């Protein structure tokens, strides 16, 4: 059987700047893979490759054995949380409905089957309480739960999440992480989770892909996020400290950032990952 996500000798560049290359990665059904690393290392671009929005300059990217392409219903996408105008003509449930058929032409007629499917997805993310409220007045966390439901609308085998916890409160960070974990565990959905912060998802992560300075490491969280491996990856002294089951990454000075990287944010100095 073909792996849900497979990269072979993959390389990505912007103009003449190589972000990463010779990346071999095969993600199993139901696996939860966190993609970590400083800004500008091509984490989001990796998702765009799998969405068919970016081309590799070498190697191949495959979803369920077929080349990555745009509009693939095998792939669901959960973007970053962002504000929405209060008066946008959408309720929570309409966001979910768009995930099912929003890409189709025509005005779209309501049907009992569609409604049942939307209700089912809303129940799956526990959003019954606020599904009928205007999307614009929902909290960021509530909207993000509905986005997960929308991403599941095409019944995908792969879920790509781009910083889905960004600017969510702690409660909703846990709720959304847990939702994605359950989706992976109970429905065998493969989850690729791009994030700055590993800790909210640490209990659920099977493997980590850590990108830094054009290099990368793949392995279990403990194999990758430790003082030796990260120091090697950043080519500078980085310390990983474990406090109450949370991983803190300390250090990584300017030298840590590859000279091609944008300097701001590039070093994880003092940052709780």
């Amino acid at each position, binding site marked *: 059987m073909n792996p849900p996500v497979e990269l072979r000798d993959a390389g990505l560049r912007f103009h003449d700047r190589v972000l990463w290359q010779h990346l071999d990665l095969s993600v199993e059904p139901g696996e939860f893979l966190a993609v970590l690393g400083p800004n500008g290392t091509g984490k989001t671009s990796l998702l765009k490759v799998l969405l068919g929005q970016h081309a590799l300059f070498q190697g191949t990217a495959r979803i369920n054995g077929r080349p990555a392409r745009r509009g693939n219903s095998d792939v669901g996408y959960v973007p970053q949380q962002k504000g929405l105008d209060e008066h946008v003509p959408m309720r929570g449930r309409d966001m979910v409905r768009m995930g099912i058929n*929003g890409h189709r032409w025509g005005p779209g007629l309501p049907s009992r089957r569609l409604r049942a499917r939307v209700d089912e997805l809303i129940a799956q993310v526990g959003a019954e309480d606020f599904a009928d409220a*205007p999307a614009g007045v929902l909290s960021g966390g509530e909207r993000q739960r509905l986005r997960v439901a929308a991403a599941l609308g095409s019944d995908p085998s792969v879920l790509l999440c781009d910083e889905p916890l960004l600017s969510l409160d702690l409660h909703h960070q846990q709720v959304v992480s847990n939702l994605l974990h359950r989706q992976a565990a109970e429905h065998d959905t493969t989850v690729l989770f791009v994030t700055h912060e590993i800790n909210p998802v640490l209990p659920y992560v099977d493997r980590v892909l850590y990108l830094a300075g054009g290099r990368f490491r793949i392995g279990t969280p403990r194999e990758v996020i430790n003082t030796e491996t990260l120091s090697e990856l950043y080519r500078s002294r980085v310390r990983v400290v474990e406090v109450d089951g949370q991983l803190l990454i300390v250090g990584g000075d300017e030298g840590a950032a590859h000279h091609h990287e944008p300097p701001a944010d590039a070093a994880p100095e003092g940052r709780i990952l």
Partner: protein
Amino acid sequence: MNGLFTFEDYGDLVLLLSDSIWAAALLGVVGGLISVFVMARDIGFAVHGISELSFAGAAFALLIAADVVIGSMAGAVIAAVAIGLGGAKVGEKNAIIGVMMPFGLGLAILFLALYDGRAANKFGLLTGQIVAIRPDQLQLLVWCALLVLVLLAVLWRPLMFASVDPEAAQARGVPMARLSVVFMLVLGVAVALSVQVVGVLLVLALLITPAAAATQLTASPLWVPVLSVVFAVTSSVGGILIALGSPAVPISPFVTTISFAIYLVCRLFGGRRLARHRKLSTRRAAAHA
């Protein structure tokens, strides 16, 4: 009020202008539907820019003795497509509109200065002229309106998806760039149509206000366009019907006043509705704090 309004021969006037009234209703439907997307995509400034450039097109047509309606249509479509191709980001778009608008208006003033025909022709387009329009022009408007309605029906779902959640829509395979250009074309035609009813300066009364009023009352993607159409048709047809009793005043002040009054009423009720939703949202947040 004596002298401003006279309702003698009112019934005859309505009959005489029934074609214009039907056309205004149809253009109201177009305005009501388009305004939903003008709101969702936050492109009010683009609409204003397009309408002013449609004026330049009309002025040019006047100068070369071509059809004014066709001229304004051409100006609007060229402007809309230029804005659509100009930049993806809202800021970039606004800069392009801001650059093009005074240039277009400058051209319009130049064309009008060079034109030595009847002066009334000059200002009809600024304030609307639907009752003064010729039957063949009216026919053109109706065909264009029907075309816009058909295109909107086809584009509706992906366009709404792309407008409110662009990242998710793109990931789902909605062809964002092409959709945006096609929408700008449709918008250009729709603006040119509204220009005929309320004039260049007042198009926003038909292309923003109806949906702005409707979204005060509901967030339902079905009821927002329905209410928006009802409001736009009420404004455009109501404006004409009142104006018929007042030969001294053009239609547009009546259209804009009705449109504004509807908005005010909706806002009054909508404010309470939003406050209720916000309170519920706070309560949910408190429940797990």
